[in-house]
């Protein structure tokens, strides 16, 4: 049970919050969790079974955005930057759990799964990562960079007609992130970026299961527009920090670094990618 007196409920992190920069020592500065009422400032609804949130010393930073919004690129760059600043970093993302990550890949490949089952498999994947990857990291003072989070999963369920309260109830025991960034791009831009990656658009990216259009392009645009609307709803409710995902990689990265530096008490936001990552810097 949380009963400590730090500085601010994690969820209400706002643009105006200024963190007094503590001396940059190896044990990372306290993120932001705390205040006295129950688990809900750590969790969306209720505490995860058997977990004591007061042990958290790391920060959970979420990057959300549709396919082609540049999330993965930004996360690679942020990880390098944070490591160069001396922070340990763990990443998480969809379908990366040991428990069911591969099973979901198979279900998607076979395309033989109904919407609710898929939503619940994703929830299983999510909580397995929370319990075996994210929480252990946060307990040891590690920064967690999440490539997508519950918001994508909720949005996907809702656009497929699953009740919104049902979806958010499902994730009531998810940890509230310290920061949630939303890389907002137009579906048209995302389409081009995604197409260039693989010279194709996948069945699921285009929401083909929803029978929106036989034309792949329009199916993608309609599907991603529906998802985007869900994000707009959630952005207000959950204090997303919205960034223009159409800006250049260095420009978006700079904004991300500024907010994260503020959160973690890092003084300098200077960063130039190493040669290994310089190809991303365009």
């Amino acid at each position, binding site marked *: 049970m949380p009963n400590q007196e730090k500085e601010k409920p994690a969820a209400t992190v706002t643009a105006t919050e200024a963190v007094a920069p503590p001396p940059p020592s190896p044990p990372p500065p306290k993120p932001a969790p705390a205040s006295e009422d129950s688990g809900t400032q750590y969790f969306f*609804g*209720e505490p*995860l*079974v*058997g977990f004591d949130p007061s042990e958290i010393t790391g920060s959970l930073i979420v990057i959300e955005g549709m396919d082609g919004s540049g999330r993965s690129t930004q996360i690679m760059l942020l990880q390098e930057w944070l490591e160069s600043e001396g922070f340990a970093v763990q990443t998480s993302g969809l379908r990366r759990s*040991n*428990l*069911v990550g591969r*099973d979901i890949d198979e*279900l998607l490949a076979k395309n*033989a*799964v*109904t*919407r*609710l*089952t898929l*939503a*619940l*498999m994703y*929830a*299983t994947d999510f*909580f*397995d990562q929370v*319990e*075996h990857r994210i929480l252990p990291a946060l307990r040891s003072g590690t920064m967690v960079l999440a490539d997508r989070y519950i918001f994508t999963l909720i949005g996907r369920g809702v656009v497929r*007609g*699953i*009740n919104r*309260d*049902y*979806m958010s*109830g*499902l994730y*009531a*025991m998810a940890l509230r992130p310290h920061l949630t960034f939303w890389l907002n791009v137009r579906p048209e831009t995302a389409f081009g970026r995604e197409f260039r990656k693989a010279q194709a658009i996948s069945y699921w990216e285009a929401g083909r299961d929803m029978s929106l259009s036989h034309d792949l392009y329009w199916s993608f645009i309609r599907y991603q527009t529906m998802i985007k609307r869900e994000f707009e709803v959630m952005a207000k409710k959950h204090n997303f920090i919205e960034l223009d995902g159409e800006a250049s990689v260095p420009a978006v990265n700079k904004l991300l670094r500024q907010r994260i530096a503020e959160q973690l008490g890092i003084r300098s936001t200077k960063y130039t990618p190493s040669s290994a990552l310089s190809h991303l810097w365009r």
Partner: protein
Amino acid sequence: METQDVAQKPARTEPAKSTLPQPGRPVPSRAYPGALIVVEGTDGSGKSTQLYLLKRWLEIGGYRLHFTEWNSSPLVKSATRRGKQRRLLTPTTFSLLHAADFADRCERQIMPLLQGDYLVLADRYVYTAFARDTARGCPPHWLRNLYRFAPVPDITFYFRAPLDVAVNRILSGRPKLKYYEAGMDLGLSYDRAESFRLFQARILEEYDKMVDSDSFVVLDGTMPVNKLQKQMREIVASKIDLKRFAPRAEEGE
């Protein structure tokens, strides 16, 4: 516990008030013509034997029916096996994986068959999850939400057997209890048999709490098999218009 009287259960044609609405739909007062019969109870309560005999009775009579078991969707099988072998499962993921399994059966078998005017028999249903996962520490209303999409049964038989009877039936017939089956993940005891007993006691307690709220028909699991079956058949015949599921001689309804 003695058999509960059944006379005043609503007939199946009255829309039963659903506490478990389907996601995405305004919710239904039972928008399907089929009927759903469920058996619940702790391990060793005799429920599977009784449901099997009920199924034989109906099969022999030629009724249209489908039988479904808890935790049996092929879709989720490999994940469940892996989770158990490597002991990756926590109360939350254990619960979610079972919900995914159930959702798959619900969306692909149970709902379509109920829509198609079948009698569906289920060996364990969402109440198993409510009892077991609550015993593992999951928040009850989170669980209720999780299974909101499940159609409400027409009859839920709860086979109640005293803890010792049920536990002994299992322990005498099984060489070794499995880790999760024995509730070892709860850390109640290092001894598997003892852990199993403590876990089952919690589950029994959770089942008992649902008797009224979920309109269980309580049956005494210690009665002789044939007598119990007779009771069960009478209750089914009185609550469900079985003619509807009889062989389609004159076709149509």
